[in-house]
């Protein structure tokens, strides 16, 4: 089997305009930002984006006009507040926010992952969310007990973007310390194509020394991109924490659209991860010290 190693540019060329892209993200955590910047560099348009908790990555895609829909439960930079570009995009009608509860979107992905027509949840019952989702969520009756539950239609994104600790060239993807957040477990099973950036590419022999750390099998992976510190400015447990200074400066820059766009452009101008790491300079060392924070 051939190598799946690619540059970020080659991998992101697998994403087409109009695709539904599921992007790993948990607020300020674990977002494959190197791949997100590459989507922006390549000028993708009309993307529908799904995240479990969208953060700065969704905000950048929104500012740059790359997305027309967010399909998920929340977009928030947690302590740094709402994602300003995304929020404005929705308020001005340029972006549709198709809002689900967490179990709602996870049920849709679980159905996609299993090849089932739908999965059910008891979440969202009694809320105003289902009424806005007539094509994706319907109340049905449990054929055994008669209880009302919500059927959540299968979601099969065109492509998913993930970040992991290690992978081999064949595409076996490893996480140190297990996968905590739901996206890594569900996205690659539901999405038609899977692109994974990793902190480090290792040999297959090295992968075989730690099979318990392999969480995605090679057959479900289409592209592997080496990107050290590839989640910056979000965190990647346990390797590095989120860049608080970067997020604060980002929120400040968002007060003036030109400054926000200039910030994105200057960071997306770096053609390689090495160039990007040079650009962010001291942030690499600053965010590597988990112990200091924890």
């Amino acid at each position: 089997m051939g190598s799946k190693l690619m540059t970020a540019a080659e991998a992101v060329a697998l994403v087409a305009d109009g695709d539904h892209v599921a992007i790993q993200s948990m607020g300020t955590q674990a977002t494959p930002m190197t791949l997100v910047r590459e989507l922006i560099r390549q000028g993708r348009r009309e993307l529908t984006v799904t995240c479990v908790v969208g953060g700065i990555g969704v905000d950048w895609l929104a500012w740059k006009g790359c997305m027309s829909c967010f399909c998920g439960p929340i977009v928030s930079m947690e302590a740094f507040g709402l994602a300003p570009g995304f929020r404005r995009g929705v308020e001005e009608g340029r972006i549709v926010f198709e809002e689900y509860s967490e179990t709602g979107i996870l049920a849709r992905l679980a159905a996609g992952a299993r090849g089932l027509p739908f999965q059910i949840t008891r979440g969202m019952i009694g809320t105003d969310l289902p009424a806005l989702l007539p094509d994706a969520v319907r109340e049905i009756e449990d054929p055994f007990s008669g209880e009302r539950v919500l059927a959540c239609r299968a979601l099969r994104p065109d492509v998913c973007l993930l970040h992991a600790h290690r992978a081999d060239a064949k595409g076996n993807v490893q996480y140190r310390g297990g996968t905590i957040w739901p996206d890594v477990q569900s996205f690659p099973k539901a999405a038609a194509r899977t692109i994974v950036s990793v902190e480090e590419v290792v040999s297959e022999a090295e992968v075989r020394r730690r099979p318990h750390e392999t969480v995605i099998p090679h057959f479900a992976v289409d592209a592997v991109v080496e990107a050290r510190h590839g989640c910056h400015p979000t965190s990647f447990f346990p390797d590095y924490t989120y860049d608080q200074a970067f997020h604060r400066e980002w929120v400040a820059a968002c007060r003036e659209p030109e400054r926000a766009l200039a910030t994105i452009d200057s960071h997306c101008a770096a053609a390689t991860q090495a160039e990007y790491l040079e650009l962010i300079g001291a942030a690499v060392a600053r965010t590597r010290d988990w112990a200091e924070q924890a």
Partner: protein
Amino acid sequence: MTDAAREPTGVSAASAPSAAPAASAAEVMVVALARLLADREQVVNGAASFIPVAAILLARETHAPDLVWLASAVGLDARPRRLPDSTLEAPLWHRAAMHMPQLEDFWSYATNGRWLGTFCVRGAQIDRFGNANNSVIGDDPQRPRVRLPGSAGLGDMGSLGKRLLFWTTTHDRRTLVERVDFVTCAGWLGGGEERRRKGLAGGPEAVVTNLCTMDFEPRTKAMRLVSLHPGVGLDQVRDATGFDLLLPAGEIPTTPAPTAAELALIREKIDPDRVIDKEFPG
């Protein structure tokens, strides 16, 4: 906030041998919320929940040593060194007994009805019947005047039979409203038995704000004042509430002021960096 609220509160507190120093609004909220958490209860916190996390840590240090806490729905019985700058990021899971995978584990334990029964909720709007909105402000949800962050787990927790404890640091007419613009988190819906008729167990039990503690009158399920925080007047609460708040029978109690021991725990052990005060800028 009146000046009186910053003073040591109540005759008994002022004259007690270990008179407590003046508590900040955030500290009063932390203590009020902590006292609502029972020992052996199982509680989960969400993002940007500094006051609930401080309350959980305080409850564990005082009356609820066996409180079960799943920090940010990941870290089982975590022992953070201090309240960190995020209630979602890994510093909160410090020295946890388990990092719980969310997809198969957390959502199974949280949805099957036996575990993780309590959730602390902040809504941009909370209404008279304990419904909360974190989605949109305005009449048209497709074209909102303000797009809020979104449901996250709120749209689940309100429907899954949890004991919901609401909190907000902004008790005003924009937050405490007659009817939310959008129900993100199902509370008592239209009041009375509507929630039960929908087949939903659990529900909102209490609301802790910067001014007072409230609950829900058992028959109508309308929000009801329980106690005014030290130094806060009834008119102040009425003026700041966007609906007709029910009152308790008899004299209106004052929320017991934080004790010197509780304040020492908050200031020296739980939150030496004063993260909770960031909830009250200026």
